[in-house]
């Protein structure tokens, strides 16, 4: 399965006045496409912190000590805030625990749903224009460099031409697509409302829907959808439709409305299945040929236009672009080789016992220049490893040299406090306050991170060089043209208020909100808890994300609503191939949702496996304790509560964090942290009980009983 997200060795702490709280201590997991990973644990186990780190919304006092979160080839912990804007909400979305506090109480639901769409639409337009222009500029420059100054005038001219007809193409295509969508939706809407009218059970928002049908049927007028020849007829029909509906809403006789609707349908529905002309080719013809389009059937027209385009422009342009790509790549490879040598030379500089400040920064500057030169401006995929390298290196160095100073201060402060504390204790009094641990930053960890950073870039470069021979520049040129086309369409596609509203209403319908037209104009307080949570889900889904993070979305809701919401998330997950990270402490919900489960305790993953592994063959005492501490419908005996409270993460325990609350703790649990033991290919647990030398221990009776009951239920279910 395709991996969407992987988290490696993530460590996060929080600076507080009492010392550094280590919230997450080195966790690893992967999330595949279309899979649900549930993270289970008590509050304070670091599950929310992990999810917030993925979304880049950690609190201000958080320190990311090490680790990486790889999404789409990028390390989310290293990319700039600007790049994160493109991912957050757009690619990775989050559903929060409390729907009331994540909605704005004084703004109508509709505004809140469309706000992000409108803003994103504007930002995307700007960004696409920028991308298109810079890329074409780079391409032009590379072309000239590849073929010599003699050809400069011709090449610049052809780039300009491409720019011009590309925009024409997008405009034509957009007009067609809008009309087509309008036609399809009109067909659907007419079918729905006609059904209701025949049954004489028309909903309250029928007037809005009739207005929609009228608007859409006018919008579907286009040469290749509903031919313009029908314009008069459609306009007359829509007018009649509104008039008849007004009359019918008084008399309750829907017959005349139905007649108009059927007439409208007969004009619009045949338009839907028509063949489509190729607008890219047509754009060129319309812009440069200076002649009207020949009147031919669509298939023949397409062939004619293709031939015209290739003869006049495309063959030459592709040849030029290919040469430019090859030239630019060759240059970049030369620079990469130089950069690798420099990286290798720079490594010992950052591995010394104590770093030399001047030397470090000078090397960093030199490396930054080299790495920048090695980036191929014509590569479509943004090379984020190279882009993030020098800022990360610089910030790591800043951190290192700042830490040297602050560590000195912190230790001095600690010693002072300790002397004071000892004096008070020596006098036989109570201090009344606790001695806070010195807030010391681990310098070696930073050095390790720097070494890793350099290694990673070197590896990345070596990989690129190895793949250099297998590149096919012809294919890449086609990719480049697609890329330009995509950006051009982004510029032309404007998200207007009415389009956003339309999309929002469809989305509300999708998440199961009845009468979305009416609900669109209401305030959050007019919704019940479950409905509010649906709105939050709709907002999260508006951008069509890849990954959905659900932070206890149903904890505040009651069972019926909870199960509706869970069904909804499951349905959307299947429909859209979403990957879901589901955070909760309710094991019943986990059983419902999860494909895989990670059980977290005190900032570590203590058990990791498929949901069958966790529920039927759990191996960690903490998982046992969680399972036996919640009653199910057959529980009769006393519940086995977990004694005590989670450890204070300012002073994380030396051994297994769960040992003090663990009935099965052994001596080694208090001394050394257990590694992850592998039980099967999918199932891992961090407990010394799995060590070959450990005594054999059975899970507690409550868990064994429950598993037996589950198996019995399954067996009886199979018989039926």
């Amino acid at each position, binding site marked *: 399965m395709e991996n969407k997200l992987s988290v490696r060795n993530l460590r996060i702490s929080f600076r507080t006045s009492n010392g550094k709280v280590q919230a997450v201590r080195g966790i690893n997991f992967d999330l595949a496409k279309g899979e649900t990973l549930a993270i289970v644990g*008590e*509050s304070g186990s670091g599950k929310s912190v992990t999810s917030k780190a993925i979304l880049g919304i950690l609190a201000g006092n958080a320190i990311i000590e090490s680790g990486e979160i790889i999404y789409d080839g990028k390390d989310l912990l290293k990319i700039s805030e600007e790049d994160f804007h493109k991912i957050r909400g757009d690619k990775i979305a989050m559903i929060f625990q409390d729907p009331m506090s994540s909605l704005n109480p004084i703004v109508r639901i509709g505004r809140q749903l469309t706000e992000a769409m409108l803003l994103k639409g504007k930002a995307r337009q700007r960004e696409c224009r920028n991308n298109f222009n810079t890329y074409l500029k780079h391409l032009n420059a590379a072309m000239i460099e590849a073929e010599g100054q003699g050809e400069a005038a011709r090449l610049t001219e052809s780039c300009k031409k491409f720019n011009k007809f590309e925009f024409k193409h997008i405009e034509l295509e957009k007009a067609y697509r809008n009309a087509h969508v309008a036609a399809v939706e009109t067909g659907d809407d007419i079918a729905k409302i006609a059904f209701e009218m025949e049954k004489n059970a028309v909903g309250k928002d029928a007037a809005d829907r009739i207005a929609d049908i009228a608007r859409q049927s006018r919008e579907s007028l286009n040469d290749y959808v509903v031919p313009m020849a029908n314009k008069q007829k459609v306009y007359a029909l829509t007018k009649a439709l509104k008039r008849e509906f007004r009359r019918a809403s008084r008399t309750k006789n829907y017959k005349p409305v139905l007649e108009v609707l059927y007439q409208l349908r007969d004009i619009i529905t045949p338009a839907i299945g028509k063949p489509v002309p190729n607008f890219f080719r047509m754009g060129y013809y319309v812009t440069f040929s200076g002649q009207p389009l020949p009147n031919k059937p669509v298939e023949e027209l397409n062939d004619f236009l293709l031939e015209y385009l290739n003869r006049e422009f495309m063959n030459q342009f592709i040849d030029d672009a290919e040469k430019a790509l090859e030239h630019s790549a060759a240059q970049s490879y030369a620079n990469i080789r130089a950069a690798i040598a420099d990286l290798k030379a720079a490594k010992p500089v950052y591995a010394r016992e104590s770093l030399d400040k001047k030397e470090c920064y000078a090397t960093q500057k030199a490396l930054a220049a080299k790495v920048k030169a090695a980036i191929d401006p014509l590569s479509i995929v943004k090379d984020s490893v190279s882009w993030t390298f020098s800022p990360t290196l610089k910030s790591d160095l800043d951190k290192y040299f700042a830490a040297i100073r602050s560590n000195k201060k912190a230790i001095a402060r600690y010693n002072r406090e300790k002397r004071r504390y000892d004096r008070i204790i020596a006098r036989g009094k109570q201090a009344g306050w606790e001695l806070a641990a010195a807030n010391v930053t681990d310098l070696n960890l930073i050095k390790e991170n720097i070494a890793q950073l350099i290694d990673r870039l070197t590896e990345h470069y070596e990989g690129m060089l190895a793949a250099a021979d297998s590149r096919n520049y012809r294919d890449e040129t086609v990719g480049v043209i697609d890329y330009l086309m995509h950006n051009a369409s982004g510029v032309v596609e404007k998200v207007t208020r009415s389009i956003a509203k339309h999309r929002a209403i469809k989305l509300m319908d999708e998440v199961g909100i009845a009468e979305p037209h009416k609900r669109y104009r209401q305030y959050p307080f007019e919704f*019940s*808890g479950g409905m509010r949570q649906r709105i939050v889900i709709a907002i999260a889904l508006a951008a069509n994300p890849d990954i959905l993070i659900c932070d206890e979305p149903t904890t505040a*809701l*009651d*069972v*019926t*609503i*909870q*199960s*509706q919401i*869970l*069904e909804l998330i499951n349905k959307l997950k299947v429909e859209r191939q979403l990957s879901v990270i589901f955070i909760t*402490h*309710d*094991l*019943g*919900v*986990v*059983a*419902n949702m*999860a494909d895989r489960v990670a059980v977290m305790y005190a900032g570590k993953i203590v058990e990791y496996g498929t*949901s*069958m592994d966790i*529920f*039927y063959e759990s191996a960690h005492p903490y998982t046992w*304790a*969680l*399972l036996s*501490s*919640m*009653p*199910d*419908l057959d*529980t*009769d005996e*006393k*519940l*086995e*509560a*977990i004694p005590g*409270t989670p450890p204070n993460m300012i002073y994380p325990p030396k051994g297994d964090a769960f040992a003090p609350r663990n009935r099965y703790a052994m001596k080694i649990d208090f001394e050394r942290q257990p590694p992850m033991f592998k039980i099967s290919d999918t199932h891992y647990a961090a407990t010394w009980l799995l060590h070959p030398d450990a005594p054999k221990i059975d899970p507690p009776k409550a868990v064994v009983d*429950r598993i037996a009951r*589950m198996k019995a*239920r*399954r067996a009886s*279910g199979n018989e039926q």
Partner: protein
Amino acid sequence: MSNKNVSQETLLRVEHLCQYFKAGAFTTKAVDDVSFDIKKGEVFGLVGESGCGKTTTGRSIIKLYNITSGDVYFKGVRICAGTQKLKEELKAAKDDKTKAEIRAKIKAANNDQKNCDKEYSKKLVAECKAKYEPLLEKAVGAEKTALEKEYKDALRKARNTRLVTQIQMIFQDPIASLDPRMTVREIISEGLVIQGERDKKVIDEKVYEMLELVGLVKEHASRYPHEFSGGQRQRIGVARSIIMNPDLIIADEPVSALDVSVQAQVINLLNDLRDRFGLTILFIAHDLSVVKYFSDRIGVMYYGKMVELADSDELFAYPLHPYTRSLLSAIPLPDPVYEKARKRIVYNPLAEHDYSVDKPSFREVRPGHFVQCNEAEYQAIMKGLKQDA
């Protein structure tokens, strides 16, 4: 968990309780004609989705709201009485005789609603007087002054004692329900102080006893609520309610806001206390597995109405009302195989019932098992039950 010490004596009886809230032109019927009784020593669970009026029922019983109509009897004494239904009857009434009767009823209801506590304390004062006055007459010298002091104390306490304080409440949110500016000692002892206890020593002793009872230690008494974890805070809430020696505790979702592991601690604590003191508990919750585990009898509420009431085992084995069935089908269980196959039953009151002609009422279909239904449904249920048997 079944309880052995359930007696037949009725501790609390709720009759036709209605609680309406007016907001402008709208009247929200939060609780509409709910009747049930709670036996001494049992745990009565109240379940339903949010907004169905289960919390309002609990709050009305403890007189946090003035009820709209209906009666609540505690230990045989009417503590809440609403008059709206009676007033409507009065309007409809034709002849003077019935009018006078209804007027008398309204007067009595108002009197009970207002004065039940006063009358109770009057009774206690009388008892106190009867006990001490003959003793005082006999006593002489130093003995007499001591006795006089004791008498004064006892009299003050009797005057300040209320019947309703024998019902105590545990609130849902342990953070919001504790005053952040009071120490734990002040929070727990507040009830005692209001009741007239002035002896610091007695108060401290009682507070320490309660803290130990709920699994905290003496040292915690001088701390503030924010220094505790969620589970410990809820324990403080429990200690505050049991220091008054209540007969009935209304636990309004005491574990909903807690972590799983802590939930078990609090449930075990409540279970221990109930075994030890024979407490009666009205347990309001929406987590059905917890309710099933903890309660002897369960009432299911839907939009202000009680739709089904039965013994907990009986309810889970033979749910008769369609809403109960839908509720039971929504419980998530920690079993992936079962969960992936679970089908939720959707309850749509308009599709399920036809109440246009025959209005439903609360009927007993098996001993101790009540369902809200009309005549046709009642016949159908009885037929189904006979077939099962």
